[in-house]
């Protein structure tokens, strides 16, 4: 056999055994380019926000201990980590992480949703809803929550849309917001949406990250429901308290 023949033999055998061996992109690229990867971005960013919400909700409940304790707590948030951290550094760090999480979550959600809608352009003539309400409302719920976050920051952080907003007096500002009907409506609707969103989102994140299993499924679902309920009740407790005069 001549050497060219041998070369041919090799190429034939290589061809026969060829599988995908092309170089792979970086981990980040792999994750971002894949639907499965992008879902993990959503899961991780969602869990970061969820963790923050739990802390936020617990902090909110301090309102029941009166203006002093609540305002003190709000001030402390700015001084956490001192003297290692400068004034408000920790808070800004948290804010940066949160913004990153929100952006990552929202951009992934937007891109995935566009993809999903493209993948299923035609509707069935025979309409039928079957997935749970929480599952079906993830997209609208997400949009509602996104808009709420904007309003919430403009209302109680910057005070931009809050007539009579006073810096450094969070207790007063909160009571003020929940003394208006629209403040209550916006807030309560958003918190109900949050509950639904967390209910499917938490369980869903567990599946996306591959930690779900048949034996763990019941526990995960229960945990998701408990979290959703606690967050919703915990957050709604504040406007309800203001409306009923428990907090004033």
């Amino acid at each position, binding site marked *: 056999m001549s050497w060219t023949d041998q070369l041919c033999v090799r190429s034939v055998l290589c061809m026969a055994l060829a599988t*995908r061996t092309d*170089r792979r992109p*970086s981990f980040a690229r792999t994750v971002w380019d894949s639907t499965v*990867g992008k*879902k993990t971005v959503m899961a991780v960013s969602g869990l970061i926000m969820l963790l923050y919400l739990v802390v936020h909700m617990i902090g909110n409940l301090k309102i029941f201990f009166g203006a002093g304790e609540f305002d003190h707590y709000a001030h402390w948030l700015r001084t956490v980590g001192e003297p290692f951290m400068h004034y408000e550094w920790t808070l800004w760090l948290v804010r940066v992480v949160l913004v990153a999480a929100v952006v990552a979550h929202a951009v992934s959600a937007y891109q995935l949703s566009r993809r*999903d809608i493209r993948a299923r352009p035609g509707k*069935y003539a025979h309409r039928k809803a079957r997935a749970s309400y929480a599952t079906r409302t993830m997209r609208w719920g997400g949009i509602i929550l996104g808009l709420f976050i904007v309003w919430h920051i403009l209302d109680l952080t910057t005070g931009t849309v809050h007539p009579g907003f006073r810096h450094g007096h969070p207790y007063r500002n909160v009571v003020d917001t929940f003394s208006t009907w629209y403040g209550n409506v916006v807030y309560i609707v958003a918190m109900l949406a949050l509950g639904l969103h967390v209910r499917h989102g938490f369980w869903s994140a567990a599946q996306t990250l591959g930690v779900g299993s048949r034996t763990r499924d019941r526990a995960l679902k229960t945990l998701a429901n408990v979290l959703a309920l606690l967050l919703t009740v915990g957050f709604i407790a504040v406007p309800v308290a203001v409306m009923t005069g428990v907090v004033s």
Partner: protein
Amino acid sequence: MKLTLRVWRQRNADADGTMSTYEVDGISPDMSFLEMLDTLNEELIVKGEDPVAFDHDCREGICGACSLVINGDAHGPERTTTCQLHMRSFKDGDTIDVEPWRASAFPVIKDLVVDRSAFDRIIQAGGYITAPTGAAPEAHATPVPKPDADLAFEHAECIGCGACVAACPNGAAMLFTSAKINHLNVLPQGAPERETRVLDMVEQMDEEGFGGCTLAGECATACPKGIPLMSITSMNKEWLRAARKVKR
């Protein structure tokens, strides 16, 4: 039984389709759904009309060819394939909507027939174990723990019908893809290609234009072979593991 059928008619891939109404009479409850359509087609042919095109072959629920959305459900109201659905599941006088699988990755060829070759390409991307004929070791050389063998079998049962895609609100092929990945990745024989398999198959799945997973669970509800939703969780886990592990 006498029934009114509203059937999706579409001349070819480029034509627009509509729902057309037909009356069928003399339907026996013992007929399969496809035999009922046979009856309609026999009448249409004699009348010189174009019979309704639909995919079907084994009519035993195993080849995966049949693919109808009946009253909004992939494969109809029972958890089985269309060919194993019997008319006793309907009532005399019912109006039944019959539509093709709808997903942009499954373009309609004619009437109720769609092109599912995207599934073949997902398998071609890595849904195999590289074991050229003649190279196999003695079958008992590698024992496989029974639970692993059973788990592999449970996933290997997938018939590639595409009901999961048809039922998914996002037109996603996660259940199909995960079934094959789990079948092969659970087995010791599949271990050497474990990482490349999941990365390549998911990449191909994305390239085909299937949507992403929102864990709505419709796929597992529609699956005539009962592939569990947890299959997707396991695939996600495999994917994350592979994305981290594969050398770049």
